[in-house]
């Protein structure tokens, strides 16, 4: 009996200590990591929105083909579930989509966002719920510069309007101005006559500000002879173009969406007889733009960071072509630059979670803020994707294309004319070009 009691006591003590040394229960491993894609699947921006969604889908499939994202906390790879949030191309739609993604779908991170007006409208919700967000389509710097709300969870992987205006204005000064002076025997100190036609939104006004600032800051010999605005979604630009024609510009810079730019150039050349060089912002480098401008886009200039129809020679030529081919094989069309940055944005989101080693949103935000990963398909400053310390912006390398009409396909196709290191042809002025006059 005495031995039996002693045995029971020893067993109880052993059981007690065994219980104390039992390892703590690890948190349950989630079946999937949810990435919310905020895209315009309906409404006027649906062309671009679908491109962004399809690119994010492609990136997700590629990551999942390798097992998903490795999360140290679970010591396992977890597949991604891409969840769609259609902003309907409107501020209200964006607010609804983001709220649903965060509160119903409980996404771990967000990517996407197109149109600065739409994106900035739901940033308050992002700030409130503190969900990391990689913006891949809205170009206004206000997205991360605004101070009325906390934007610390928002990371901008898309060139801003500051970059658009700066690159194009420098190209005009370095390439077009000397070419016009040379062809028409103008004195070298003749001011270049530039006209602006811009969308009256944060995007268009941002480009306008950047052009003015670049001219002033660098004391460039460029004179802005006309600055005309139009409302977003406008389809008849003839009066604005007639006004610009009356100002006798040497070139016209358009800060417009692809559906607008594709109408402006034909209306300018066909209807108004404005035979000049048109320069468009990089968001126009999309298949629909080429289709819309038709033969009237001959000799026009397009700023770019990713083109469906040309890849700059170098280390990214093969990855770019691989992305385009995979996209075409899956979706039957070519991606545009918003698709390219969203494809990258999905990889950036995945890398941030991997680096964080957890699905904790604050940790993911921190991982984004110190992220350094090799460029994927778009050319980045220092060949690295990283976000600036001040406004969490990625720095892209842009180039300029000149479009030439191909009668066989009935559309223009690009050549790269700037910078010199990657150019495929020199910039050329067409025979029909008419310089402006004071």
């Amino acid at each position: 009996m005495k031995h039996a009691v002693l045995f029971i006591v020893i067993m109880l003590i052993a059981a007690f200590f065994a219980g104390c040394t039992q390892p703590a229960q690890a948190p349950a491993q989630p079946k999937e990591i949810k990435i919310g894609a905020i895209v315009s699947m309906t409404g006027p921006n649906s062309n671009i929105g679908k491109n962004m969604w399809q690119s994010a889908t492609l990136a997700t499939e590629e990551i999942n083909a390798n097992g998903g994202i490795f999360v140290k906390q679970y010591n396992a790879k977890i597949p991604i579930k891409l969840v769609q949030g259609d902003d309907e191309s409107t501020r209200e739609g964006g607010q609804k989509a983001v709220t649903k993604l965060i509160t119903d779908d409980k996404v771990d991170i967000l990517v996407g966002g197109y149109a600065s007006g739409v994106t900035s409208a739901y940033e308050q919700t992002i700030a409130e719920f503190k969900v990391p967000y990689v913006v891949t389509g809205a170009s206004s710097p206000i997205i991360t510069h605004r101070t009325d709300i906390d934007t610390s969870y928002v990371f901008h992987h898309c060139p801003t309007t500051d970059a658009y205006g700066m690159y194009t204005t420098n190209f005009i000064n370095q390439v077009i101005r000397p070419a016009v002076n040379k062809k028409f025997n103008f004195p070298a100190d003749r001011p270049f006559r530039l006209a602006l036609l811009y969308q009256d939104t944060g995007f268009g006004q941002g480009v306008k500000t950047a052009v003015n600032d670049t001219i002033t800051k660098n004391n460039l010999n460029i004179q802005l002879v006309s600055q005309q605005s139009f409302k977003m979604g406008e389809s008849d630009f003839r009066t604005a173009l007639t006004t610009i024609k009356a100002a006798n510009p040497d070139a016209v810079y358009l800060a417009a969406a692809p559906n607008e730019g594709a109408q402006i150039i034909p209306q300018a050349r066909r209807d108004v007889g404005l035979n000049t060089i048109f320069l468009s912002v990089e968001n126009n480098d999309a298949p629909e733009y080429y289709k819309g401008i038709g033969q009237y886009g001959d000799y026009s200039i397009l700023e770019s960071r990713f083109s469906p129809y040309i890849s700059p020679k170098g280390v990214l030529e093969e990855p770019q072509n691989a992305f385009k081919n995979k996209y075409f094989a899956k979706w039957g069309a070519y991606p545009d630059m918003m698709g390219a940055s969203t494809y990258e944005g999905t990889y950036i989101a995945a890398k941030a979670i991997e680096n964080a080693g957890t699905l904790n949103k604050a940790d993911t935000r921190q991982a984004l803020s110190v992220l350094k990963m090799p460029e994927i398909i778009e050319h980045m400053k220092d060949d690295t994707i990283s976000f600036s310390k001040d406004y969490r912006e990625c720095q892209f390398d842009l180039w300029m294309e000149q479009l030439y009409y191909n009668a066989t396909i009935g559309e223009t196709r690009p050549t790269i004319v700037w910078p010199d290191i990657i150019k495929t042809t020199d910039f050329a002025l067409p025979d029909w070009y008419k310089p402006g006059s004071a």
Partner: protein
Amino acid sequence: MYDLGILLQIIFWGLYAGCIYILLATGLNLIFGVMKIVNFAHGEFLMIGAYITATVFLITGFNPYVLILVSMLALIGIGAVVERLCFRPILGTSKLNEIFLSIGLIYIFTNGAAMIWGDEWQSIKSPYSGITVPIGSLNVPLDYIIIIITTAAILCGLYLFLRKTKTGLEMRATSQNRKGAMLVGINVERMDILSFGIGCALAAAAGTLWVVSGQVFNPYMGSIPAVKAFAIIILGGLGSIPGAIIGGLIYGIAENGAAYFLGGVWKDAISFIILIIVLVLRPTGLFGESGE
């Protein structure tokens, strides 16, 4: 101070824009005149007309100006069905019913078009794109001359139909006094369906001219022109077809004039400023009669 050539050109762009507005507003006014209903979905008939013309053009390659007839005929049929199934059951009930019904139709037509044709913006090219005609100091695209002539021809046709045919006279009689028309044996329900169909056909004509001018179109294109068409018929006078024509011209020219003198952001605002001024001075509109 201002270059006369530029002003003439801007007036010409205004005439072109006015043509689209006139056709849309005239159709809306015809429907309102006969049925006294408010149809906010009228812009969607413009959109459907645009898609029908573009689709048949891309399939057959026929001249898109000829296809205006196909589009108009198709919209007469669609309009008749919509009138019979949607508006007739609520005719004479609360105005709120009409408003919410037509708002519902906007979503149905927009989403339906997006399902059938996709919601990406599209455009087609007229066979005359690139041809310009010198008129005085202007170099006018041939397409816009054809658009203005086509609009004038359609309006003349409508005028003759309303003035010279028995059905047209019955439609006008219904518009002027529905009960009186019934008492003299006019089948007012037939007039309803006919006026709704013709109104939709005029919207289809506007949609066709929109696409042949090279402007892009998508399922969401109808909302802004519809709002302007409403403003035009209020400006011109509810139920007055001459009012719709004059109102459309005023809007087209005023919009383009405002864009030139004040800047592009004033383009839409100026139309409503004119509307407010006219309504303050003449609450029944330019050609409206009191009581309408």
